């Protein structure tokens, strides 16, 4: 996609972008709260030991639970996840922001990294 297509037109929706606003923050509260808990190493361990139980404890919605189970980042965002909190979940799986970028754009990690380098 060209940069002009990625920017879009003033006043119109921003291509490929969801603003994390009040509506998203309400919808995503449980998921983001769970991810925020991952600041503590013990909570990361607890999630790894019993993912189902840990998600249940934070009362994830069925859509949030499904997105987490499927490691579906766009699904998590659609369910109200905010990327700063989701990054803590990604860290548990050893994924960095290039891995997460690749997952969201449908590119391989190598292709995503190359796309970043190509903007130099």
């Amino acid at each position: 996609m060209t940069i002009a297509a990625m920017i879009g037109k003033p006043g119109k929706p921003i291509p490929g972008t969801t603003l994390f606003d009040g509506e998203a923050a309400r919808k995503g509260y449980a998921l983001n709260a769970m991810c925020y808990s991952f600041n503590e190493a013990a909570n990361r361990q607890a999630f790894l030991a019993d993912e189902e139980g840990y998600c249940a404890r934070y009362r994830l919605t069925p859509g949030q639970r499904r997105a987490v189970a499927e490691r579906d980042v766009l699904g998590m965002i659609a369910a109200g996840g905010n990327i700063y909190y989701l990054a803590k979940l990604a860290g548990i799986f050893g994924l960095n922001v290039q891995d997460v970028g690749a997952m969201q754009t449908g590119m391989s990690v190598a292709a995503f990294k190359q796309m970043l380098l190509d903007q130099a």
Partner: protein
Amino acid sequence: MAEVVGAYFTSHVPSIGGAIHRGAQDDPYWKPFFDGFPRVHEWLAEMKPDVAVTFSNDHGLNFFLDKMPTFAVGAAEEYHNADEGWGLPVYTSMKGHPALSWHVIEQLVADEFDPVTCQEMLVDHALSIPFELAWPGADQWPVRVVPIGINTVQHPLPSARRCLALGRSVHRALQSWQGAERIVIIGTGGLSHQLDGERAGFMNREYDTFCMDKLAAEPDALTRDSIHEIVRQAGTQGVEVLNWIAARGALGPSAREIHRNYHIPISNTAGATMLLEPA
């Protein structure tokens, strides 16, 4: 009289911390970014600031969505970093300057800004990495800090105009402060980047260049766009440029650029570093 010696701006991408930790500054991938710093070190050695008034955003270490302040001013004796979820080494703590923090808070509220005040506040990579970059290898920081947080996470965000005005109010506070401190203003984050959505990986050199070109002499030009249009141009996380805009306000009415470095990419981000002096 306290003196505002200048302003230092830089990106704060977490992986910069990793590169520092591994000693990877001279790797071909990282060198173009770290090459922007010898000039910063020289300048800081010359200016010898002993206080830093900083503008940055929290990334889910100190603030969660249960209570999300639009503007927050730290007024603590000390600020600690902590595990941000990735189990990385914890950064060196910072000493605060609570008397100056309260003086800034008084001015902000008198000017009809109404910040949250924090006598306890964790600081995340948004502050620690710019400090690591500025004073590499220091076992304690040469500056005490007055940290000011801006919400760049949960919309609605404060407008660019509001952030510039906030910075200008902070400048008024510094002007009336009776101490003898040498104060550096620090703005962190950006420039263009987007971590989330189908547009992940988006950067925008043209918009970043516009921001850097206008920052010193024409900062009001950066307030022409709504938050929505800034996100369009800079990316969902590139909106951290709000920290730069507020910091520019705190520097004072006129300024000149003395240093600039810009490199795409560091991680998913357009890395940028600038120094401005009062003019």
